[in-house]
């Protein structure tokens, strides 16, 4: 073993010199095909550049023929024996393991319900109210209808925005706008509600010539799916009497 050491050292030295040559050769080779794009992002002059290589050659991915579905081939000359089910034997020998006590039976009529579903009274609409300024998040526990009632009373710039997010957390926008947006710049200008990208002119009424006020009690209905999130936000100079109410059986 002792006289093998110089041989091993010589071998490892030759391998390392070969790898060094390969590395040098590879670094000198131009690789235009791997460079797909550069991303530049930053503030002012402090810009960071990222180079992204493209893994797939351009135009090849979709042009490849789709292979047929493969199925496992049958193995010839084999016999299939029935699998012994040990659970049967176990249940015969130890019936107490597989028998549920009578005390456990019929404890709940909704054995698979979540805590929220158990605590919530079935079928009773619940109203979540955001008064004044702030933000509130509501997650739908089931598919259903949500009624949104909004009232924005202000003397200065103020906003009410209701955003709808899908199960993945991406905002669902309507013509590039949130689900509901209401922006008033002062206490008298005409500034109607925009719901699902459409302006609702009935959301404001002319109290006196040139003096517009918000219509109390206006509401809008949407259908939400389980897992979607509704975020209510009131900001700016909204008076405390402003509110956003979300009424539904799904919250």
């Amino acid at each position, binding site marked *: 073993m002792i006289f093998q050491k110089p041989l091993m050292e010589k071998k490892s030295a030759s391998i390392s010199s070969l790898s060094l040559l390969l590395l040098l050769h590879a670094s000198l080779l131009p690789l235009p095909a791997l460079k797909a794009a550069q991303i530049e992002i930053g503030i002012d002059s402090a810009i960071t550049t990222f180079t992204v290589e*493209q893994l797939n050659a351009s135009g090849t991915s979709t042009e490849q023929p789709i292979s047929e579905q493969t199925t496992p081939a049958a193995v010839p000359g084999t016999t299939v024996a029935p699998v012994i089910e040990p659970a049967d034997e176990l249940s015969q020998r130890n019936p107490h393991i597989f028998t549920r006590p009578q005390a456990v039976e019929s404890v709940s009529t909704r054995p698979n319900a979540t805590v929220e579903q158990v605590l919530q009274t079935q079928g009773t609409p619940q109203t979540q109210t955001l008064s004044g300024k702030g933000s509130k998040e509501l997650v739908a526990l089931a598919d259903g209808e949500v009624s949104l009632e909004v009232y924005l009373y202000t003397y200065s710039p103020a906003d009410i925005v209701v955003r709808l997010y899908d199960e993945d957390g991406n905002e669902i926008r309507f013509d590039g706008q949130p689900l509901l947006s209401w922006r008033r710049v002062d206490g008298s200008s005409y500034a109607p509600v925009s719901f699902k990208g459409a302006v609702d002119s009935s959301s404001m009424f002319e109290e006196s010539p040139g003096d517009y006020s918000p219509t109390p009690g206006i509401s809008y209905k949407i259908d939400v799916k389980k897992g979607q999130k509704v975020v209510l936000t009131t900001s700016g100079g909204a008076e405390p009497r402003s509110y956003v109410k979300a009424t539904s059986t799904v919250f």
Partner: protein
Amino acid sequence: MSARKAFTTVELITVAALLCGAIALWYYVLMQARMQSGDIEDEQSFHALSASLVGELRRDIRSSLSISSSAPGKWEIDTVSTDRECLPIRETVVYELSQDRLKVRVTRKEKTKTYDFSKASDGKEISFNIIP
């Protein structure tokens, strides 16, 4: 031998002036520290947000067939991916820098996700560019 029973006016004014100076100095140091702390938080927010954006963009570029710029500050990336049945599908993802240069919008399958840098950059315009 006369015993002093109270401070003179000059002494009181001197002490008050020293106290005011000390308070002003302490307040200045506090404000400086607070501003520096805010700057660090903004910088961290910017890096976190930009890393998320770059990560998403990197995935799209790596599965892209073509990258084109349809308008200044707007890029369309033609990507290819697989559906649930492992069949290839093509999808166009649009990255767009907003007019105020504070947000980057990513539109995919008619859903728009917005990366809002307005707070993280403290209102400063950001630079965002994709060079195919």
